[in-house]
């Protein structure tokens, strides 16, 4: 029995609510633009996908907001939206868990305080640095504000963290350790040092003359990913419980695979072998054959190496006729530790809408890549079927989720 999704919330560069997010994905436009959060004049890369128009005051008092890094502000807001959608949980707070993923935690705060330390010395470092920068702050704060005293932890597996968080949450429910889990991911690491560091790795697109076309998953002219920020959270509960309390079910988590390449700290394993096994684990967990998957929501970062390895992995798992593939990262950029959660939501929305969003900026398939059917240009009609959503992180961490449709409403 899949785990039911009864609430979803997100804060992304292409939309601050589900409707705007979905419309943004379907438009095929990219949210990339010049960075506004700091001066980039010394940087080779000057653009990213920022979350615009986010009013933290809707969710937090000025005092609360002042003591939370932006990553936690975004994560908390997404979780509040998801909980609002889920309605009255009717749960014992001791049986409500929170699992939150992030890549790096409160980097904005850390960087600001490091600068203060360098300029003014040890006694000027904020007493709030530790609680604001720690990677577990988002998980902790969601629980603190709602009084959820059940299991609570943070998953830090780079770009796989959001998917891992949802998968681990599903396992908490399956093992009976919680009745409800708030699970997702948050990231806000577009900082001067963060941007410089990802660029120095050679991971980022340098298409500064035309940022809106920089993130182009699986395209022949891709040259790296575009940094993004944002958050996505889901409310998960056992299917029977969701039905019993009359909750609206938006779909389910049908399977979860996770493993590690153990090959290289940043490069994917040759032939995408780790990713192949990860997808197979998720399918086995869901009890599904590859042919039953209706679409693959690719990790699709737009880096030369990731997309090549993932295309090869997908063709290995699905054989000669893989289902249609799309990547939200053409639109959103790379949300790092939030990506897997936001993308799980994207796949559930696609299943619900009966349409797969296009991969923004995908124009010309690379002939050298394994042949995958990348949806581009416009949304493509989609028959109701489970989806596979991939997330692969630096460190070799792989996580794949199987998302399943909600049952059709009973006739009459």
């Amino acid at each position: 029995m899949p785990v039911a999704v009864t609430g979803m919330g997100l804060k992304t560069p292409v939309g601050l609510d589900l409707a705007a997010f979905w419309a943004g994905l379907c438009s095929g436009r990219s949210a990339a633009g010049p960075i506004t959060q700091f001066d980039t004049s010394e940087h080779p890369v000057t653009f990213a996908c920022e979350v615009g128009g986010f009013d933290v005051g809707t969710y937090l008092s000025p005092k609360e907001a002042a003591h939370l890094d932006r990553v936690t502000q975004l994560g908390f807001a997404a979780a509040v939206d998801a909980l609002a959608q889920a309605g009255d949980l009717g749960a014992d707070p001791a049986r409500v868990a929170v699992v939150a993923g992030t890549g790096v935690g409160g980097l904005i705060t850390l960087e600001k305080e490091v600068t203060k330390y360098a300029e003014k010395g040890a006694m000027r470092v904020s007493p709030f640095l530790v609680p604001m920068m720690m990677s577990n702050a988002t998980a902790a704060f969601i629980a603190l504000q709602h009084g959820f005293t059940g299991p609570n932890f943070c998953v830090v597996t780079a770009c796989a963290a959001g998917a891992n968080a949802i998968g681990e949450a599903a396992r908490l429910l399956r093992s009976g350790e919680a009745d409800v889990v708030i699970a997702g991911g948050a990231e806000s690491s577009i900082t001067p040092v963060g941007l410089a560091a990802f660029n120095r790795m050679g991971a980022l697109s340098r298409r500064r003359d035309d940022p809106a076309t920089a993130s182009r998953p699986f395209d022949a002219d891709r040259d790296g990913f575009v940094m993004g920020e944002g958050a996505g959270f889901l409310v998960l509960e056992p299917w029977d419980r969701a039905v019993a309390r009359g909750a609206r079910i938006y779909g389910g988590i049908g399977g979860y695979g996770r493993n590690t390449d153990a090959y290289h700290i940043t490069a994917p394993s040759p032939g995408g072998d780790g990713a192949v096994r990860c997808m197979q684990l998720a399918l086995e967990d869901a009890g599904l054959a590859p042919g039953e998957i209706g679409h693959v929501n690719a990790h699709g970062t737009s880096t030369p190496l990731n997309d090549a390895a993932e295309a090869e992995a997908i063709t290995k798992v699905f054989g000669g006729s893989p289902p249609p593939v799309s990547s939200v990262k053409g639109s959103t950029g790379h949300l790092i530790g939030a990506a897997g959660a936001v993308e799980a939501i994207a796949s559930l929305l696609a299943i619900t809408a009966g349409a797969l969003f296009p991969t923004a900026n995908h124009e010309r398939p690379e002939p050298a890549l394994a042949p995958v059917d990348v949806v581009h240009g416009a949304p493509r009609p989609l028959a109701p079927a489970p989806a596979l959503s991939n997330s692969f992180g630096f460190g070799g961490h792989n996580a794949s989720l199987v998302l399943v449709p909600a049952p059709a409403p009973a006739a009459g």
Partner: protein
Amino acid sequence: MDRSEAFTNLQSCAVDVLHVDAGAVTEEARFKEDLDADSLALIEFVMALEEKFDISVPEEELDGVTTVGQALDLVMAKLAARA
């Protein structure tokens, strides 16, 4: 700087750092109970005072400081010692 001027400066630090209304910042106000300032917020507040008044307040001197008036006494003593 006289006590009244110092109080006004301290009050503005409290408004900025503790996110309270200026009216709540009286000499009798207790940091924890009346201004909702926990130990971390108090340290942040003292950092703001240090910058505002260009003084240095070692942590051990904060022992026993529970009200705004006591904090103001501490500031006045620092200013007097400097003069």
